[in-house]
Structures are given as C-alpha cells and as structure tokens.
C-alpha cells in the first residue's frame, strides 16, 4: 500500500537534486565511514515534515504528538538505512509505510503496557492499602471476600490483583525490584542464622551457604516464617512493610533457595 502526498510540495527542483545527491553519496559510502552519520542526519532533517504530517493523523488518539513524531522518526531512519536509490522510487514513498508502521506499533505497545495493566495496578495499590487498614481494625488479615466487599469489587478482581502482583514480582527479580521494594527501609534487626533448628536439615542440603548468601531482609523473613513460626502479618508488622510484600519476598526467596538446592 502506498501513501499519497508523501513529499512536501514546497520542495523545489534544487532541493530535489540535493536530496538525490545526498542519497547517492550515502549509498556509496562504506558503512564504517564517519561521514555517513552527518549525511543521514541531513536526509532525516529534510524529511521531518513528512514524519510530522503522518504523525498528525494520529494526534487525537491519546498519545502526545511529539512522542508520535519521535517514533515516526525512528521509522524514517530505518527507511533511510534500507533505501536503495537504484530502485527508482522516491525516499518519501519508500519511507512512508515504515514511519506509519512505527507509529502503529507504538500504539500497540502502549495499549499492552499501560491500558490493560493500569486497572490492575490501581486495584493492586487499593488492595495493599485496604489490607493494611482492615488488618488494623480486624486484628487479623482480611479475607478476599472482605476485601472485595470493602472495595466494592468482585472477589475475582481481588484474586486477579493478587495474581498480577505475584506475576510482577517474578518478572521483577532480574530488574532489581520495584518502587515499594526500594522505598521500604531495610531496618532489619540482626538475626543470627545459627538457629539451632537449622541443625537437622543443614548438612544434607547445604542450606546454610544459601541462607548466608541471601540479603539480610530476605534471610530474616525466612527465619521468622519457617523457624520462628511467625505469621506473614506479624512479620509485616515487625519489619514495617506490607503483608503482601512479605508474601512476595517469601515466594521469591523460596524459589531461589529451591533453585540453589537442586542445582548441583
């Protein structure tokens, strides 16, 4: 599919010849030649009005025009790199589908990254804060039903929010944690791992080196939950973080320990 009105009409014959000369030189130069960059910049700058023209078609769809111009320019640069002047087509005609492709891809990416999870992100934040509130008034953690009633949403929605939170926690292991994690001050009182209750299991499974390798807060949570038998809610109070955060750290740390113990 070719797009009409691709080349700005105000271009005169002189500019057209200049563009042709630039494109010929760009195609001739070796890919390592430092002059290529400045020639490409000039070609791209000449065609920016085309990118702006195409981006304006999508300006009423909720994305800032400058973002659309930016991704469209990426499409233009790709087209310049791939353009072959020998083919006899105009660069503007050749570049238009690539520019539109980048703009459309931007909308697809945004739809996935922002629109769908945002509802869950907001619900997650509400579930976290409401859990803390209800825990204070009930003197125990709330149930899914109580959270759903309190927030005026379905129980399935609460479960989805919990699930998404775990999915995100897993995904963020390599990314080094999220905002809540960074915000939580590591005020962890020192807990020795010379707990006598480790004795029975440590020799066979080399658990001790794995525990020693854990960050202090993760190690503390493991000790409190599995060897001191404190509940997630009690640990959350003790460490000054949310119970959901405790559960995410537990899930993540157990997975790491399991991996460490089975990887021989």
């Amino acid at each position, binding site marked *: 599919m070719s797009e009409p009105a691709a080349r700005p009409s105000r271009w005169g014959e002189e500019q057209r010849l200049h563009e042709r000369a630039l494109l010929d030189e760009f195609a001739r130069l070796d890919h390592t030649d430092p002059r290529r960059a400045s020639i490409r910049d000039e070609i791209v700058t000449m065609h920016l009005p085309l990118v702006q023209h195409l981006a304006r078609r999508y300006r009423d769809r909720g994305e800032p025009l400058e973002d659309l111009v930016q991704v469209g320019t990426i499409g233009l640069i790709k087209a310049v790199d791939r353009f072959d002047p020998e083919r006899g087509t105009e660069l503007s005609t050749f570049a238009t589908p690539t520019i539109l492709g980048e703009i459309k891809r931007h909308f697809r990416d945004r739809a996935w990254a922002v629109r769908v999870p945002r509802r869950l992100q907001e619900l997650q934040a509400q579930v976290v804060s409401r859990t803390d509130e209800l825990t204070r008034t009930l003197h125990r953690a709330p149930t899914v039903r109580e959270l759903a009633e309190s927030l005026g949403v379905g129980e399935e929605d609460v479960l989805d929010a*919990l699930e998404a939170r775990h999915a995100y926690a897993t995904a963020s292991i390599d990314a080094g944690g999220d905002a809540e994690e960074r915000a939580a001050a590591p005020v962890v009182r020192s807990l020795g791992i010379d707990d006598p209750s480790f004795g029975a*299991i440590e020799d066979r499974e080399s658990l001790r080196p794995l525990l020693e390798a854990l960050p202090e807060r993760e190690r503390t949570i493991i000790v409190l939950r599995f060897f001191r038998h404190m509940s997630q809610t009690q640990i959350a109070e003790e460490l000054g973080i949310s119970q959901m955060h405790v559960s995410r750290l537990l899930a993540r740390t157990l997975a790491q320990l399991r991996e460490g113990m089975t990887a021989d």
Partner: protein
Amino acid sequence: MSGTVTLTFPAQTGNVALARTLAAAMSARADLPLDQLEDVRLAVDEAVSQLIIDAAPGSDIACAFTLMGDALDIVVSGTSTSGRTPDADTFSWTVMSALVDTVTARVDAGVVSLRLFVTRHAPVDA
C-alpha cells in the same frame, strides 16, 4: 460448600503457576485470611515443585482441592522416579509444615502424594 476441584497437568515447572492460581482461588472460597491464603499458595508451590523434581518423564501432576467448612484439604500427587516420599528432615518439608497445619506423605505403586491440610485460624464473620 463442598465438592472437590481437581487440576491435572504435565510435570513441568512452567505449569506450577496453574496450581498456585487454583490454590489462591480455593483458599478464597475457604474464606482464609490473606496471609493464610498466601501461605497455601506457597505450600502448593513447594509441594508441586518437589514432585516435579522427582517426576517420572512424561508423567502428570494432579492437585485435588476439597473444601470442608473452614478447612481446605489439598492432595498433590504424581508418579515419581524414586518411588520415595520426601524426607521430613528437608528444608522443603520444614517449609510446607510451617505454611499449613499438617503435611503427610504416602506412596502407592510409585505415585507419591503430599497431603496439605489447612484450617482457618482466626474466626471470620459470615
């Protein structure tokens, strides 16, 4: 409410999430407080992961969840290579025991079953 909900899937680590999701949903039906719900999710994760480590090639893992009033009875089973139940002095067993009320294991014709039983700790207004 009564009745048993079962889930069967190939013994591959990529499928553990299915069991975790069902564990959370069934815990919600048992009206477990959120911290207990998350404990059950972790316990099922641990049980399924342990059975997968020892699973016979090409075998399945089955999870059966039965609601019993304010209790949840969970049986995770699979055909094992070793034909042995997990030892009670492992970290894995310590973890599962801390997360639910009782853990029991049995083996029957090469099929290892881990039974996790959990009751709601704090009273919840109906």
